[in-house]
């Protein structure tokens, strides 16, 4: 296991709980678009978490967001949306790639085929960047 840097796991946990709290307690209607927009906003947090060796549970996070959004968005959809925001492994160090692998592995076990789907996507991204 890799050592978490700068206690970032706590920060990440508080931040995610904060967003879930916001979504849960928002008085108006929370649409699927809003949930996906929030996930997109969290892209930098996911990247920072991986850079700080935090192996976070995407399924748990997706489930929390889904419940917070009154189950308007299925947790699988949220899980895929989160993975789509993860950084391209080509831009990460070896340790960080390993952390990313551990993060995705939990989702792959639950929803087989995720890794393949995103691997293709990352390859295209890397090719475009080159």
């Amino acid at each position, binding site marked *: 296991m890799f050592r978490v840097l*700068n206690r970032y796991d706590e920060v990440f946990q508080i931040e995610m709980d904060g*967003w879930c709290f*916001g979504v849960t307690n928002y008085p108006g209607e929370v649409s699927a678009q809003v949930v996906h927009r929030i996930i997109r906003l969290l892209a930098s947090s996911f990247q*920072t978490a991986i850079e700080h060796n935090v192996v976070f549970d995407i399924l748990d996070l997706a489930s929390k967001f889904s419940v917070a959004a009154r189950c308007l968005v299925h947790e699988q959809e949220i899980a895929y949306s989160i993975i789509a925001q993860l950084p391209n492994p080509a831009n990460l160090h070896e340790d960080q790639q390993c952390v990313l692998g551990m993060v995705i592995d939990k989702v792959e076990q639950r929803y087989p085929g995720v890794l393949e789907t995103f691997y293709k996507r990352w390859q295209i991204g890397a090719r475009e960047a080159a």
Partner: protein
Amino acid sequence: MLRFLRGEPHSVVNVNDMEQNKAQQHHHEQQHDAALRDDLTWTQYITNLAANKLAPPKSQTSKVLEDFLSRLSEELYEKGEGRIRERLGGGDGASDKDRAFQSSDVGKEGSVSPIGLAAANADTMTLEQPLVGQQEAPQLTMATAKMESFSFSGNQDLARPTSSVQQLHQEIIAGNRWIDVLWQFIAAHQKRLVDPERLGIEPSERMDIQVELIRQIAASYDKLGMLTRLPDSLSEARELKVVDDIRTMALVYVTRSLMDVASPSEIADDNDETSPKKRQSIEFPRSVISPYEGIQPIEFDPMELLVNV
């Protein structure tokens, strides 16, 4: 009957006509719906603008104002000549002329500007949206430009000795009419609480104040349009507003959590540089920082702008 026997559908023409009529009716309905939708969008935008400073759909703004102005132009210059003559004959011209002279004094040294008067009474004047000074406005909308040419043409005409009095009167009346309509439109849609009557401003001076305020409102639209990063789409702007609200609640949660986490002894340890229990500093992710960071807010004092006009 022969047609029928030959197998020709004699009612084909009628059916086609009916279909055409149906299609036309459907088209009209669609147009009506689109117009209604535009109206609704516009009203919603106006009501949201002051409170949320959402992106003004500039095209919509200029479109509505231009429509108004072009319609008025037609009415006043093509169909409404009789009405203008009637108003001229009604004895209103003298007061309008006086009004023109008064407006020509605005801006001269020593003269008391009606805007200044408004500013003096401005403690009773509430604006839902800050005004932007005319000197700061990068460009005025077409509506304002047109309005200027009318409202201030009195000054130019007075400077020209060759201009006829009747033409001058016509322009003044047209200018008044335009300003009145625009004012009504803005007052109705934007719910501004600027009431010159309540402020005790003389009717002859109201027009100048209205002109200035309309001009400033138009300028503020441009200014907002330049500074905002929000897209033109209202639905997307609404979505961003929701996300912003949720973000605020998330920040409240984060702040509260952090306050709860640290006990007095932990805080004491943190403040003590030599303490072995001093905790490592933690960095907040960028996502909890406002995405509007880096954009300088518009800082101005509406009172000062009003006085300097």
